[in-house]
């Protein structure tokens, strides 16, 4: 038969598929970034500190925190109101997301981390709940716009052909497109609410009265019994979302959140105006340097700008990218490992359960805490940050992929061993896992912001130092640089992912 002759002359590399290439490239790039990143281990004698942390977790002290209930409630309330406001803003925008201007504006808003939005709004509104809610609502709304528009694009078009020709536009859209993806959108909003709880807690790091505020001060002051209790509480809060976050209860929570909102502090108009018209201007344009000549001002400005770009923005960008890519590669390895462990027919109920419990803990703990602990262990370098990001994101991707693998139908020949898994299950879930992982890259990039606050010299580090030195002008330039970096990567990833209807590529 002529076919046989053809087969035997097929070159080996013809079997080297799209995902194998992508994986190989990812691993190579990761190695390179890891090589160039600062990953020196500085042994610090961490054991006594670690021992105290361990003791803290063995005997968590739930009563040490004053205002504990208020902190929990504030965390939930900011998350709830933030997501609701984000939906109000993001859902309508999703309909216009195909316009490049809208997409660019959303990418810009999204690229600035909640923490930086909070730092900005803090200058304007002070410690008002408005700061917390807006800091979540803006980036979340912009994310909703993008994801909803992506999801809606995937809705099958056949329904539109079959409904009566004279149907009005709204009904056409709602029944013909939205109804197809309603469940997906609901699931996504639910998932984002979990993220919002984490974001809301983290806003405590800049002074908002949420769990993170108490968590950070407890860890920083070495009150590990208290810190451990807060962390455990936080994990329970995230893990029990399915039990307390019921659709029927949502209106109740919502009303309570509005009702119990801390009083809006009166906003001092003159302060807001000063911030917008003077504080954020470069120093040579501010009112205290009125006596400078215009030419001198521009010259000084050029020098000032050059210094910020070369001394802070560019090194910060480089560190951010190195850190993020290295973290992406390690997230991949962890996700692959833990997805495999979470597949019950392979590992058995017991191991799969334990694995899922570990996944819950790993994805609930804010990266900040991991980074802190690893920094004690390994000394101040990028390594703790890389490990922290990899653990958190790898666990999240593994959790989402693992959920998919439980519903994936596999052939009856599955032998229950690792080779059977690699042939039968992995090829079915791999495209989705990779897609999730690449979507996470944008998130990882943003999360480097928080690690900057711990002292890893990413863009976040420079922004944080500018804010704490009350140099809003410099912070603004760096925030712009962050946004630029994120937008560039967003464009690149869109080219890579969306065009090539990703999940249908063969492995």
């Amino acid at each position, binding site marked *: 038969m002529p076919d046989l002759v053809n087969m035997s002359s097929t070159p080996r590399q013809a079997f080297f598929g799209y995902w194998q290439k992508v994986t190989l490239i990812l691993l190579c790039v990761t190695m390179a970034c890891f090589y160039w990143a600062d990953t020196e281990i500085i042994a610090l004698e961490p054991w006594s500190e670690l021992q105290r942390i361990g003791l803290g977790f063995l005997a968590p002290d739930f009563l040490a925190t004053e205002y504990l209930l208020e902190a929990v409630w504030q965390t939930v309330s900011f998350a709830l109101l933030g997501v609701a406001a984000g939906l109000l803003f993001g859902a309508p925008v999703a309909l216009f997301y195909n316009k490049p201007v809208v997409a660019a504006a959303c990418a810009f808003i999204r690229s600035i981390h909640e923490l930086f939005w909070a730092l900005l709004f803090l200058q304007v509104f002070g410690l008002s709940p408005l700061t917390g809610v807006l800091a979540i609502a803006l980036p979340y709304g912009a994310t909703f716009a993008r994801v909803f528009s992506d999801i809606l694009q995937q809705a*099958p078009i056949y*329904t539109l*052909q*079959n*409904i*009566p020709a004279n149907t009005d536009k709204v009904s056409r859209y709602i029944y*013909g497109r939205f109804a197809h993806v309603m*469940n997906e959108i609901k699931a996504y909003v639910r998932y984002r609410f979990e993220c919002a709880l984490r974001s809301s807690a983290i806003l405590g790091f800049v002074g908002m009265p949420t769990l993170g505020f108490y968590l950070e001060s407890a860890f920083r002051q070495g009150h590990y019994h208290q810190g451990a209790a807060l962390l455990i509480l936080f994990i329970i809060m995230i893990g029990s979302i399915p039990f307390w976050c019921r659709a029927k209860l949502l209106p109740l929570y919502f009303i309570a959140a509005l009702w119990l909102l801390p009083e809006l502090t009166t906003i001092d108009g003159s302060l807001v105006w000063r911030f917008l018209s003077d504080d954020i201007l470069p120093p040579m344009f501010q009112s205290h340097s009125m006596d400078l000549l215009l030419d001198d001002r521009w010259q000084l400005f050029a020098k000032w700008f050059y210094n910020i770009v070369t001394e802070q923005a560019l090194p910060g960008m480089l560190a951010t990218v190195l850190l993020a890519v290295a973290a992406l590669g390690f997230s991949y390895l962890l996700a692959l490992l833990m997805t495999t462990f979470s597949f019950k027919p392979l590992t058995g109920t017991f191991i799969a359960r334990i694995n899922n419990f570990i996944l819950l803990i790993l994805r609930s703990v804010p990266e900040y805490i991991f980074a802190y602990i690893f920094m004690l262990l390994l000394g101040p370098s990028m390594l703790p940050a890389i490990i922290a990001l990899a653990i958190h994101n790898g666990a999240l991707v593994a959790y989402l992929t693992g959920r998919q693998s439980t519903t994936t139908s596999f052939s009856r020949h599955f032998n229950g061993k690792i080779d059977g898994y690699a042939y039968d299950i992995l090829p079915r879930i791999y495209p989705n896992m990779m897609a999730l992982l690449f979507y996470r890259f944008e998130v990882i990039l943003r999360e480097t912001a928080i690690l900057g606050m711990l002292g890893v010299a990413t863009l976040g580090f420079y922004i944080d130092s500018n804010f704490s030195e009350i140099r809003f002008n410099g912070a603004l330039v760096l925030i712009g640089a962050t946004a630029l970096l994120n937008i560039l990567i967003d464009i690149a990833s869109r080219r890579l992912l969306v065009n090539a209807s990703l999940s249908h590529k063969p492995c």
Partner: protein
Amino acid sequence: MLDISDLSLSFGDKQALDSISLSITSGEKIAIIGSSGSGKSTLISYIYDQLQGSAAYCSQQQGLVESLSVFHNIYMGALGRNSAVYNLFNLAFPFKKPLLEVTAIANSLELDCPISQAVSQLSGGQRQRTAVGRALYQDMPMFIGDEPFSALDPVMGKRLINLVLQQHQTVIMVLHDMDMALQYFDRVIGLRDGRKCIDTDAAALSAEMLQAFYEDSTHFIGASIEPAEIA
């Protein structure tokens, strides 16, 4: 009612329809037959595009919304009759009137599942009847269907074809069951490789002639049975 003259359509390199001319008058019952890839679906969707305002369409892909109930999917046939606000309310809280009407349609289609059931849980035959139900509920003078009964057993298929024929003045349907085409339709159009080979009164055609038509058109491809027919 509709005149098509010298229509050719192609997708990329593939010629789907090759200079087709035909005219359709109101009241006709037309069956379109042909082997896989002969251009039946392309022709029928072209015909629907021309007659949109007065025809209900039941495409091969069905276009059902998996997450919605049988009721809501059938109700979609009435979207054009009602206002957007009414449609939206009905999505959340079904109104009594459409509930009664859709129940009647579901019964006439012998749908043996609760109409509150999500379409994603239906069998192939139930899905097809839901799609037909949506077309029936449009209440149009004309029915255009692309193999709407292919997943049903022949006995039920015949009962439902009768139902569709009774409720519509004009019916144009792609079929792969030759007996049905001869028994229930008064005009048969046969396509082969995008060209119209048969266009005649059903009475003038015998089962043997049709058999010959199919064998002619398939013997180039080499395979004589298509998978759909085994299923």
